[in-house]
């Protein structure tokens, strides 16, 4: 996994990734936070194969995750906030309540 260099004193904030708690310095993107703990952000809607963040600047759409129940968010374009619930996007997005569903 990616490591964080000792940073300028920043408070740590907590988030969950697929149910697991993690802690990172404040001020980073959701994609960066994800990369401290994992490699996979989503599963392809075409093949179901795993994808991870690739460009970190909003041009590749591989870092799509579900944030606080909202699917298909570009993780690299969203700043992580305290208590955010991040889930890997499991493929095609669900409709009703915005919670993720298993892919058929």
């Amino acid at each position, binding site marked *: 996994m990616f490591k964080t260099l000792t940073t300028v004193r920043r408070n740590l904030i907590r988030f969950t990734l697929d149910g697991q708690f993690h802690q990172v310095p404040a001020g980073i993107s959701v994609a960066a936070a994800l990369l401290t703990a994992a490699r996979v952000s989503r599963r392809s*809607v075409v093949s179901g194969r795993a994808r991870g963040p690739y460009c970190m600047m909003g041009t590749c759409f591989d870092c799509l995750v579900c944030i606080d129940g*909202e699917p*298909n968010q570009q993780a690299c374009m969203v700043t992580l906030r305290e208590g955010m619930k991040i889930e890997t996007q499991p493929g*095609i*997005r*669900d*409709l*009703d309540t*915005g919670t993720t*569903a298993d892919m058929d």
Partner: protein
Amino acid sequence: MDYDIAVIGGGLVGSSIAYGLSKKGRRVALLDEGDRAFRASRGNFGLIWVQGKGWDFPAYAKWTDEAAGLWPAFDSELQESTGVELGYTRPGGMEFCFDERGWNDLNDCMARVRTNSDGAFEYEMLEHAELRKRIPEVSSAVIGASYSPRDGHVNPLYLLRALHQRLDARRVDYLPNRHVDSIECLHGGFELRTNDERLAAGRVVLCAGIDNVRLGKLLGLNIPVRPNRGQLLITERVQHFLNYPTLHVRQTREGSLQIGDSQEDAGRDDGTTTEVMNRLASRAVSIFPMLKTVRVVRAWAALRVMTPDGKPVYQQSSDCQGAFGIACHSGVTLAAIHAGPVADWVAGGNPHPLIARFHPDRFDV
């Protein structure tokens, strides 16, 4: 003679006709423009739509129904021979209505189509509660819908791809990036000048969409078509929920939603507009409220090939033997019948009895 038949226009109409001709063993050239042409086929919604058509024109009601009936075999044939999955299904289709007046108009229209098709056209008018049983997600803004089991849908782009694959396999000469500058009627055939080349063909079929007006004049054909702009929105893929194509919202096999449409007189401007995008988006959400957070991945616009009454034109030139003109805005619905009876007619066979009803002299009333 380089070719038996030159088909001008490589969209759904031209490709279907060329395919039908190739199956009859004719030597065919299919001339097409380049990558950035108007290409009505690229803006097609993908509906194989029967309901409502021909409420004021009995021949069109019958023609459309027959065309839709040919589709299942057409789909199997293309799929088996190319391996391309067209995504054709015929679950029946709906048109939504939002008020009493809309309901009455639709009801009236459906009844007329039934009469004009000698009772063959099947439909039901579904009130809101009944509609909810089939499409539970629909909002209360939709008071009901007309439903016909005769309607279906397909991926129009894959249809075109499959046709092109078949044309390639059947040795039809696909000649893209050709702008036809002139066509001369010679004894026993035609000479086409395109870019710097000359090409001789025994017969010529114009399937060039709005360019048919210009080309038609060269061949004694009156094909009075005008561009009619339609815009649509395409969303990211979502979980399957919509099992029926509807006139304004359709879910593709991949899961993306197509949301349409508009009918605009914009000349040759095939650009999208903010007002229409805005309207299409808000209407989609009013019909299906849970779509509010679904993302639009692109908007699209294309120029429909619109005849004065919206019905097809099939014309054989009396001045120039062997010249044909074909125009319509339902290249998908009519694809199978174009590949079958219409191609037969172009090849010199006896015309299907309904073809004569679509002669453009009907506009001279």
